[in-house]
């Protein structure tokens, strides 16, 4: 792949991520089903890493995580930086060794990305003695269910970008 194509690919991935972030903040944050709203942000790092491999995926996760950390108020200052790098690494591992990149792989890595983020939250809340076990498990289940429903749309978006740049 030429340098120009490489740059164009990452510009398209970034534009796709920005679209998803805008949809999350303008629309999804205002929709409540089972008292939670769909949370798509962690799935971005996972799906991109499943297509692009561990090195590029981890770098994307790192940059995206830093941007999320400085533009939102996470429970600890480096929350999304650490979470998204780990998510990207695990997603690339799954895509390389377990399930070939595709619809099923994107579902699995999306679920895994949500679980990793929720695990981070659980660890921090447990350390700060916030929330009961039942409350945490209930929130995890509902968020996973509601968010996973929309992961095929993310897969369609990023798989299209990946296929377009691969063909070009």
């Amino acid at each position, binding site marked *: 792949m030429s340098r120009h194509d490489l740059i164009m690919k990452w510009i398209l991935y970034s534009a796709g991520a920005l679209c998803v972030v805008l949809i999350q903040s303008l629309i999804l*944050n205002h929709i409540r089903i089972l008292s939670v709203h769909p*949370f798509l942000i962690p799935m971005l790092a996972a799906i991109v890493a499943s297509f692009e491999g561990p090195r590029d995926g981890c770098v994307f996760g*790192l940059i995206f995580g830093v941007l999320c950390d*400085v533009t939102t108020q996470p429970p600890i*200052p480096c929350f999304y*930086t650490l979470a998204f790098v780990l998510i990207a690494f695990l997603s690339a591992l799954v895509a*390389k060794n377990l399930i070939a990149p595709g619809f099923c792989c994107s579902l699995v890595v999306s679920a895994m990305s949500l679980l990793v983020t929720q695990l981070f939250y659980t660890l921090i809340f447990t350390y700060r003695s916030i929330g009961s076990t*039942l409350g945490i498990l209930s929130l995890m289940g509902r968020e996973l269910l509601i968010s996973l429903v929309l992961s095929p749309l993310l897969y369609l978006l990023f798989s299209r970008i990946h296929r377009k740049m691969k063909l070009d």
Partner: protein
Amino acid sequence: MKKFFSKNGIWILFTTVIIAVMLCLLSAFSSSSSFLSNAAGVVTYPFRAAGSAVTGWVSGISDHFSQVDALQEENAQLKKQIAEMEEDVRQSKADSEENQRLRTLLNLRQQRRDFSYEAATIIERSASNWASTLTLGKGTEQDVSVNDCVISAEGYLVGVVTQAGLNWCTVTTVLDPSSQLGALVFRTNEVAVAAGDLSLLGSNRLRLNYLSGQAGLINGDQIVTSGLGGYYPSGLVIGSVEEVRTDNSGLSQYAIIQPKVELASLTEVFVITDFDVVS
């Protein structure tokens, strides 16, 4: 994968750790918000404000068509409420005059509350389901600082400023699981702590903890800020008691509070930038 670890993996891990440590240090050494967060907030402020305006416009149109009947019913109830409140105002005016006469008699100083307000619009709500925060379009330029209380137009407590940038600030609402406020039961003067709870976050409720065994709370009891410690003004309405429960140990009680403010429909709030209670 082995190639990844030997060639790039170590460097990516090293870079991640360095960046994470830098973010933590930047946050720890700043009183209101880190330099990066402040810069990112200033840069994204126009986009967030525009997005909030668009969302507000769309929901305004849909509300216009869907809530006509509900608004008419609410209008009738509010008229009734106004009539009752006018009667209360007349009574409290008489009480105030009597209070003034007695204070003069006993040579007491006038009790007054001086608040300085800064109006702010909500430009973003928290994306995470594990927190309840709002981002407002005012910041340190307008004298907003960390630990300032935020109230609605009706004077109900919304939350507390936990991060302040140049032209933005983040408010942790009363529903957030990390929120803890000194509270007072208005009827009995009992002191307690109003705290957010993760299991109640979805149903927009919070807990009143550290109630004594003889608390004697009833449904509908109003909960206000206690003002103890001087960090927050006293008397700001938090909500009302919905239910009193006994905790798992069976030794103490806690109450479920329904907050007075409806966070989902809030668009504009007021930041108390300064307060002075003289008694």
